[in-house]
């Protein structure tokens, strides 16, 4: 049996307002698809342990919506919701991802499940719609990249 790397790979491409998360999972795509799309299972893994999934609703069809509420021990709630654009079980799901705290920002999230030896490679790509940023920074916006910014943050945090 090959030893498979289960490290979570987070990539912030230099030229797009995109965040990509990749992770190997030790199960076939069909099962991963199920646990990523059914509330019964989402409740049991989506989000940090300290946050309880207090509400979950998924209408898994094109044009259908989903909504998940995370509740922190102090009672504060974080509400996320979105709509499915594209569904190709068990390989690809595309839809919006919105945080209720900033509903004007609709990120588009693409989930891709690829069968690989011994399991599934899961990739979620979140594309942020940074109109605000674009308007504000006509000259330079985000295009130069946030990965670079991340590195710079680390440097700057070390400086201050």
């Amino acid at each position, binding site marked *: 049996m090959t030893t498979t790397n289960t490290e979570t790979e987070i990539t912030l491409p230099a030229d797009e307002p995109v965040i990509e998360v990749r992770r190997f999972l030790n199960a076939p795509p069909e099962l991963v698809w199920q646990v990523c799309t059914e509330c019964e299972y989402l409740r*049991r*893994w989506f989000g940090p342990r300290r946050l309880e999934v207090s509400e979950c609703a998924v209408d898994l069809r094109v044009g259908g919506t989903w909504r998940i509420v995370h509740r922190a021990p102090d009672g504060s709630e974080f509400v996320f919701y979105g709509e499915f654009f594209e569904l190709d079980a068990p390989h690809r799901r595309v839809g919006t991802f919105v945080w209720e705290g900033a509903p004007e920002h609709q990120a588009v999230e693409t989930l891709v499940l690829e069968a690989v030896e011994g399991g599934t490679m899961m990739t979620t790509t979140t594309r942020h719609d940074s109109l605000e940023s674009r308007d504000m920074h006509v000259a330079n916006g985000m295009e130069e990249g946030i990965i670079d910014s991340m590195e710079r943050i680390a440097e700057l945090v070390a400086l201050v």
Partner: protein
Amino acid sequence: MRTTATAPLTEIQLDRAFGALADPTRRAILARLSEGDAGVLDVARPFPMSQPAITKHLRVLEDAGLISRHRRARHRMCHLEPQRLKQLSDWVGSYREFWETSFERLDELLEELQVPGSLSPGAPAPASSRQQEPRHRQGSNRQPGKTGEGEGT
């Protein structure tokens, strides 16, 4: 919602801050200000650009909450606001934490679901996984499953 000193940043604040950091001149300005407050002329000196251009960069940094400006005598001084950088750094860290802890839980769930007979009552059977041999465990960092089966080899 805001319960800690470093309140979570809104998407707009994140966009502004990352947008502001996406420019090398602005990063250089922040690095300069990390050494101490400086007037606009001092900030502008190392750069081959006009003062209005620098002023524009300063405004972007200020809008992003990365610096503040105040008057000292007749000069406008620029001051680094490290708190915003800290918030950005925390944001990146919490994003990673969110996914890493989610995936740990997902690993456990998938493992449990692949032990024959362990599906919750009434749960739809994941057709394909039922047909397959139980997966091998990875490494030895796992708790044993609920049954002794499914260990592969």
